[in-house]
């Protein structure tokens, strides 16, 4: 475990950087080559065609607008919730509640909201049943509208928990003497926020912004489910080109995604370049002072119950739907119940058990690799200034900025050649792509909060590298590791396309077994599968939570 001792940032980050380059590099090159049709005569005609196409431009602007609005709203709500709730959210149960929406894949969450808020949804039906309106179309039309309200609502509802996950560790360990100092000097709340919280919170907010923005602008499922016929978001158009019947359109998909990717990566790189100075002082702190005083304690209880309601309402509806056979519009209660959905699921018997084990195994391996590669890389980024840091940061974040269909071709070709396609090893490695950036982000923030002074003291007292890691960093990194466990398992379990392509049908995870059923019309079937699907990450989380209790010397509380 020599890399714990090294202070050379390049060595610390080498595994993460190499794996990212290996996985992404060929994929991106292939995607670009495909988009210029290198096999015929290289030409940029597709780019020219796209950039002068009115539908495409409308679509780009529409996507950017939706992504921007959803991201800003999520960040604001998340920030408000964390600021007022972090003492409450330290406990396991409230934290699980706050994170709960994350265990549902995006489109399932969208589907849940659709069940609730569509014009023939439960709420509209309830209002009708109570005689408050006559026709479904008197209920506001939130889904499949040309402004994308349904898409935005879904993303905000889904991303707020992620924002909480990113910000919570920061607030959990903000130093209270500094706050008191500001108050003593006559500062107001705003001054506390600006001078004490902002330096810690702002960099994380910025990164969270990019992650959420990049995700929303390039994700396919939610707009495909809830979007209008026109305008369509870019990922919907690209997926159609990519998977559509006309294979000659595939280069268009690559070109569209390359344009989008370049745009995002450029912005991220510039931001890192301009904000890098602002961040380094973070790691100079001497570590955390635990402070449990919330800013608005009187509201925190109310806010928590609001959050509880917002999380549980859709889940309650989903559970209910899994038993409903027929619920006619306007009736207060369902006219008939069924266990058919659950029966279908249980009928899967052996296949289902196999899928659970496969999913568990894959997500645990992915998690292990994430920690092995992510811990040193995060430390390197947190504590060192070096040549090309902005570049490395952008590179390490880029797998989540680049839509998976862009790199799928290159990654698949590579994996076939080295013989890990159609095999679980390939799946585990490819799952690093969408997970590793999150791991590094979260752990880096963790290291920055701890600061490197403690290590310096420990070393001067004669601690070895492993001792420093185990006794100084590990206990204090636990909140971050919790977040990593949660995120990585959720993301790994939700991967459908990459698992299907690289696993090639040999690796049957829950996603592979159940995603096809989301094309059925039977809501009971979809609902019971969704619930089951969401249970797995919770089980993993509880398992690891239990293990952590046994392994970790002292709990940081």
């Amino acid at each position, binding site marked *: 475990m020599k890399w714990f001792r090294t202070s050379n940032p390049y060595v610390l980050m080498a595994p993460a950087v190499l794996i990212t380059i290996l996985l992404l590099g060929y994929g991106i090159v292939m995607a670009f080559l495909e988009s210029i049709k290198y096999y015929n005569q290289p030409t940029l005609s597709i780019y020219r065609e796209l950039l002068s196409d009115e539908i495409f431009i409308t679509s780009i602007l529409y996507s950017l607008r939706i992504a921007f609005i959803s991201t800003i709203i999520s960040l604001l709500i998340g920030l408000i919730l964390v600021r007022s709730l972090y003492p409450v959210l330290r406990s396991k149960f409230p934290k699980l509640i706050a994170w709960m929406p994350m265990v549902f894949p995006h489109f399932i969450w969208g589907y849940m909201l659709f069940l609730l808020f569509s014009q023939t949804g439960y709420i509209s039906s309830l209002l009708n049943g109570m005689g408050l309106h006559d026709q479904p179309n008197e209920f506001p039309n939130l889904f499949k509208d*040309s402004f994308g309200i349904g898409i935005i609502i879904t993303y905000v509802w889904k991303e707020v928990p992620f924002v909480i996950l990113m910000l919570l560790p920061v607030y959990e360990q903000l130093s209270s003497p500094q706050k008191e100092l500001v108050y003593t000097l006559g500062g107001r709340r705003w001054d506390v926020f600006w001078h004490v919280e902002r330096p810690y919170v702002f960099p994380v907010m910025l990164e969270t912004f990019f992650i959420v923005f990049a995700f929303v602008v390039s994700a396919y499922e939610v707009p495909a489910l809830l979007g*209008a016929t*026109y305008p369509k978001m870019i990922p919907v158009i690209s997926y159609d080109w990519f998977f559509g019947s006309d294979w000659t359109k595939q280069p268009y998909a690559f070109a569209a995604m390359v344009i989008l990717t370049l745009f995002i990566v450029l912005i991220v790189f510039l931001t890192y370049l301009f904000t890098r100075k602002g961040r380094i002082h973070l790691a100079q702190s001497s570590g955390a002072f635990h402070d449990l005083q919330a800013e608005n304690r009187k509201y925190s209880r109310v806010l928590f119950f609001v959050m509880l309601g917002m999380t549980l309402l859709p889940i309650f509806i989903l559970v209910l739907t899994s038993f409903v056979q027929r619920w006619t519009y306007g009736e207060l209660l369902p006219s008939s119940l*069924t266990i058919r959905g659950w029966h279908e699921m249980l009928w899967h018997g052996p296949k289902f058990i196999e899928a659970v084990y496969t999913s568990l195994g894959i997500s645990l391996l992915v998690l292990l690799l994430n920690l092995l590669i992510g811990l040193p890389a995060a430390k390197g980024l947190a504590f060192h200034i070096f040549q090309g840091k902005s570049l490395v940061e952008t590179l390490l974040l880029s797998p989540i900025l680049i839509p998976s269909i862009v790199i799928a071709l290159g990654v698949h070709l590579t994996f076939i050649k080295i013989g*890990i396609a159609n095999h679980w*090893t390939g799946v585990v490695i490819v799952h690093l792509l969408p997970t590793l950036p999150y791991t590094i982000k979260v752990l880096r923030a963790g290291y920055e909060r701890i600061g490197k002074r403690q290590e310096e003291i420990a070393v001067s007292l004669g601690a070895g590298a492993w001792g420093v890691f185990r006794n100084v960093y590990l206990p204090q990194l636990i909140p971050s590791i919790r977040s990593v466990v949660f995120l990585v398992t959720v993301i790994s379990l939700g991967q459908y396309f990459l698992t299907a392509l690289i696993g090639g049908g040999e690796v049957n995870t829950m996603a592979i077994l159940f995603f096809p*059923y989301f094309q*059925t*019309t039977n809501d009971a079937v979809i609902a019971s599968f969704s619930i089951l699907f969401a249970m797995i990450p919770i089980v993993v989380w509880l398992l690891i939570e239990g293990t952590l209790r046994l392994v970790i010397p002292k709990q940081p509380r």
Partner: protein
Amino acid sequence: MKKMRMLVWVMLLLFVSACSPSTDAAKESKDILKKDWREIEETTKNKTVRMYMWGGDTGINRYMDEWVAPRLKKDYNITLKRVPMDAPEFLKKLANEKRAGKDAGNMDIIWINGENFKNAKDNGLLYGPFVDKMPNYKKYVDAKSLDIQYDFGTKTEGLEAPWGKVQFVYQYDEEKVPNPPQTFEELAQWVKENPGKFTYPDPADFTGNAFVRQLFYESSGNVKNILDSGYDEDFAQKNSVKMWDYLNEIKPYLWREGKTYPNNLTELDRLYSKGEVYITMGYNEARAEKLIKQSVFPASTRSFVMKSGSLGNAHFLAIPFNSPNKEGAMIAINFMLSPEAQLTKLDSEFWGENMSLDPARLSAADQKKLQTIKRGESVLPAETLKKYLQPEVDSEYVAWLKENWVNEVVQNK
């Protein structure tokens, strides 16, 4: 140097994996077609056949897992593994394997038709021709009929064996629509009288495209005209004016005033199930039966076809070029073409879909069995369906209609 060693170790750890042995697959494949059927049967014992197919229907999956797989195991000692995957996805996988020169793949049977078949064939992803090897194909399939020789205008050339046939019908709620329209004019009339109660899926969707395609047939006078001209954009341009006019004329009276459309059939079915619209549609003349049984569709659901015709097509089973068990694939496909398997498939308990076999070639006993199978009240009589059956046209029209619909109908404010 220790650091470097650590690095190498990490990288090795990542890439330790099973290696795939490369075989002289091409030569082997040719030899298979020289074998006689008995030999083929012998070589497949104790082997696995992996079948990649769309997995979104519990009835179809049950038919495969509960009926087909156990019988293949018992009669031929073949383990059938069903892998749920959409055709565009497994074809992407196959195309990448071809590109990377991987001769030993892992898919043995794929379920395709239409443009997926065309793509697979054009890109050399299929093995064969193999259909003439199979006894049940030779005995029961009417290989000369047009819907088996052509798959959406692409010659099948023995690269795929027909698994079933479906026909496009409309479903409606008898209680809400006492007299369903019989022609497109009547439909337009009905739509205007019942604003908001009809829509069709975006033609980017399989079903939505079929709806528009049928209008295109009518718009160009006769399907023969389209078949004769092959794929011809000028022809399409000239003969689609009426169709676009029609679609724009009904647009303001559609669900949500035609400002948006269901993205796919699932969404349209959901609207129908909730009573937002009164008519839905789709391939497979018996598709409503299962949904009625599950109470997704109201019990008063019936179906109708347009007098101007109803599209019908076949769907097929094929063997990928790099299947590791081509013999087993043939045995399994042959079994799925047996009268027993096809008659069971027709039963709406499982799937409820029409046979790909020629009923006239069945034994007297099987013909009797065929007649006793009740397909359900929502299914139109066989004679009616046959009377209005129309063939599919070149699959390139699918893409043409999809793209032009956006310009002609959606953008048309």
